[in-house]
């Protein structure tokens, strides 16, 4: 039995094509990433970049939702949520950062090209970029953050990083020291949730990476996610066509985030599955307490391994629960509804908290080996923590939960 199948997930809900995709991704990433990572470590040019291309362009994750007429695969019904989960946990197992980037790409596709809310005009404008086979499209978002310097307007307690105003047929965007959710160095397309001058309604505006007035700072060092080389941006009078505003409504924005959180949850599950495989190899062979007592047979360490497996299972079930909610709007509501969005936010936070605990425990069990780059575990530990921080402060998310469940109004 494939050891990843040990962990429960609603296999019955997945289409054959999802299972096939997961299986081929599993093989691909094993050969192209997992088997090479000891040698290539987290090398961006040597390992991560070529594999991003393989995943997005050759396997075609970046074509998934777009209409066939525009070169996409038009796998754009809500059931695609399962596909996203199944694919990204496989990618996340190989490299959390790559899956995190793919999650961004897929979330943008979902926001524009879902069958139910297909934005034909936007698809026609942007699908070619994703479908022309020329290269991977690195998508990054410029979202509100908690505790912006100054007095920026806020969305659910977070301050907008980018301000927009409409002027003579264009949007003009400004923002200084803007921190993207990923890939500030490499992104081809930034999706900015902007405060709009003199208006209540924010706007979600796409900014091409080569837009004039957009400058990227130097790559900054960070804990993990080597695949996402990040840098702060300055937007100074960046001008984009009015049509680059994809939506103004909160529902659409929440929908984008719900899909992003699904992708990120699956990414984290992938990281945990990798940690499982690393610990398994270790626990099968490591002897403690003198001779003969294999690590996994020790009542204490065995129990901890059991607890880790429990955590991984729960995280996986939760991620697929979210997929199930997004896959079935008639039962649960639109992905952009407050209820589904809140659930998505709860799930991504819970999955990441569970991941943090499980991988901390895995490190404990592997002691120095867990801490050594050679054993590869520590990169998942760094990556998952980084993802958790980028998803945002748990404190503010809890306010969202309180808004939804208790009707809090002023938080």
């Amino acid at each position: 039995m494939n050891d990843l199948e040990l962990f429960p997930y609603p296999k019955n809900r997945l289409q054959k094509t999802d299972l096939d995709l997961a299986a081929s991704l599993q093989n691909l990433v094993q050969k192209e990433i997992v088997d090479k990572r000891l040698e290539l470590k987290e090398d961006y040019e040597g390992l991560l970049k070529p594999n991003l291309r393989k995943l997005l362009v050759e396997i075609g994750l970046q074509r998934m939702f777009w209409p066939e007429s525009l070169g996409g695969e038009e796998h754009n019904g809500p059931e695609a949520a399962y596909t996203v989960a199944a694919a990204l946990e496989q990618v996340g197992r190989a490299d959390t950062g790559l899956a995190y980037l793919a999650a961004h790409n897929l979330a943008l596709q979902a926001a524009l090209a879902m069958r139910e809310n297909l934005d034909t005009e936007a698809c026609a404008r942007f699908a070619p970029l994703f479908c022309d086979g020329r290269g991977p499209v690195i998508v990054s978002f410029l979202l509100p953050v908690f505790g912006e310097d100054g007095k920026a307007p806020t969305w659910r307690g977070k301050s907008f990083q980018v301000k927009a105003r409409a002027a003579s047929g264009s949007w003009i965007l400004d923002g200084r020291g803007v921190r993207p959710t990923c890939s500030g160095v490499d992104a081809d397309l930034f999706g900015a949730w902007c405060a709009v001058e003199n208006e209540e309604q924010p706007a979600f505006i796409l900014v091409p990476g080569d837009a004039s007035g957009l400058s990227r700072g130097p790559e900054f060092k960070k804990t993990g996610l080597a695949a996402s080389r990040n840098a702060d941006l300055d937007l100074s009078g960046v001008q984009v066509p009015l049509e680059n505003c994809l939506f103004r409504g909160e529902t659409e924005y929440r929908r984008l985030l719900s899909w992003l959180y699904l992708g990120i949850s699956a990414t984290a599950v992938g990281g945990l599955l990798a940690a499982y495989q690393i610990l398994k190899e270790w626990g099968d062979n490591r002897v403690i307490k003198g001779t003969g007592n294999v690590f996994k047979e020790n009542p204490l360490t065995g129990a901890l391994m059991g607890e880790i497996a429990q955590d991984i299972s729960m995280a996986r079930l939760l991620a697929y629960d979210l997929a199930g909610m997004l896959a079935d709007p008639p039962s649960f509501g639109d992905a952009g509804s407050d209820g589904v969005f809140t659930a998505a936010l709860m799930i991504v936070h819970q999955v990441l908290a569970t991941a943090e605990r499980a991988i901390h425990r895995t490190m404990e069990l592997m002691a120095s080996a867990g801490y050594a780059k050679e054993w590869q575990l520590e990169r998942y530990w760094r990556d998952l923590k980084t993802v958790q921080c980028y998803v945002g402060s748990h404190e503010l998310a809890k306010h969202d939960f309180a808004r939804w469940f208790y009707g809090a109004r002023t938080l």
Partner: protein
Amino acid sequence: MIKVRGIDVFSRPLEYLTPLGEQVGEIIREWVEKEVIPYRREFDEDYLEHRLILPPFKKLLGEYGIQRILFPEDLGGWGLGHSDYLCVAAFRMFEEIARADSGMAVAFGVVFWPLVLICCEPHVNRRLCEEFAPMFTGTTEPVFSCLAMTEPQGGSDIENVEVLKGSTIRTTAVRDGDEWVINGHKLWPTNTGGVADLMAVVCTTNPGSRNPEDIAIIFVPCDRPGVTQGPAYEKAGMAADKNGDIWFENVRVPLWYRACGPGDDAKYYGEVVSLGNMGSIAFAVGVMLNIYEKLQEYVNRKTYRGMPLKENDAVAGVLADFAATIEAVRIIGYQCARMCDRQDLYGPRWTPEIVARARAHRYFAADRALEAIGKVMNLMECFGPDRDWDVEKHWRDIKMVQLWLGGKQLSQMEVARWFFECETL
């Protein structure tokens, strides 16, 4: 610059403090501000060469002469091996260094770790002090020691002296005339990777034996023929501590290089374990003190609805938890240090009782610190993992404090064994 309260707001048991510890603490504070903090963001990439890491050590250990402190005064040392305030003073020093870089604090602490076996009452080995003091006192270059316990097949078992009694040690010391001949392979000791000048090696004189008399801790100057050190490993953090392999191939040293002698080596091994745990708490506290400073800057500078972030009740809850963790862990740490100092009150620090207490204090402290720092990183969102805020570095570094010294689970077993009188764990 926003004026905020500094790190000295956190409680310490004032009645335990010593003038010397405080004085040296101040010196170290100045040293870290000038020599370490400005450069530490580059340390990760310097893990192999230590181009940035070695010069500040030269100043602290060599030029200020702190590497001498344990040796008797008549041998050019400061005589702290005879004091009953060594640990509290060390706690203060470790905290101050860890505030800048806990990897450096470890490398610093381990300079003294094996020397405890020969410099401290009641088991001063005068002849070895005379032998090795000049290495440390006669130079302004930094001199490093290491304590080599861990082996490829496992570290915890070797530290699990009470149960395994040295039976898993594979590094052998065979007597040949008036010399030991040492063969074996160690890995991970702090200050390896070519750093150490002197090591204490945990060996067996009779492989597989469960007789504590067969555990031998033998000093080996690193330039002896047959000693080979590999390059430093690449790790998640703690770049300022180099760890690598050491191979011993027919390494010869005089018989009297054995630290304390048959039976006593095993006995006083407990002492280095206690002190290692005590020091680990100081590393965790030092790190948290610096994160407190960073967090002060963050929550004062960042705003939320027009007010500093700290004025938001939800944020304040996280801040309070962090402050409460520092308060509690720091007091535990100083108490642990005091317990190790005042053996007249608490009993000898090498006994299973003190080992268990120190392990309990350490793993509790490390767990709390990690949890608290993890929450701070999360509060800082995308700035939490950003190297420029220094918090993530501390998070990566301090994870090791939880993992070393036999791992957390061995600690749990030793604690349970002592407090609940378990017999077969």
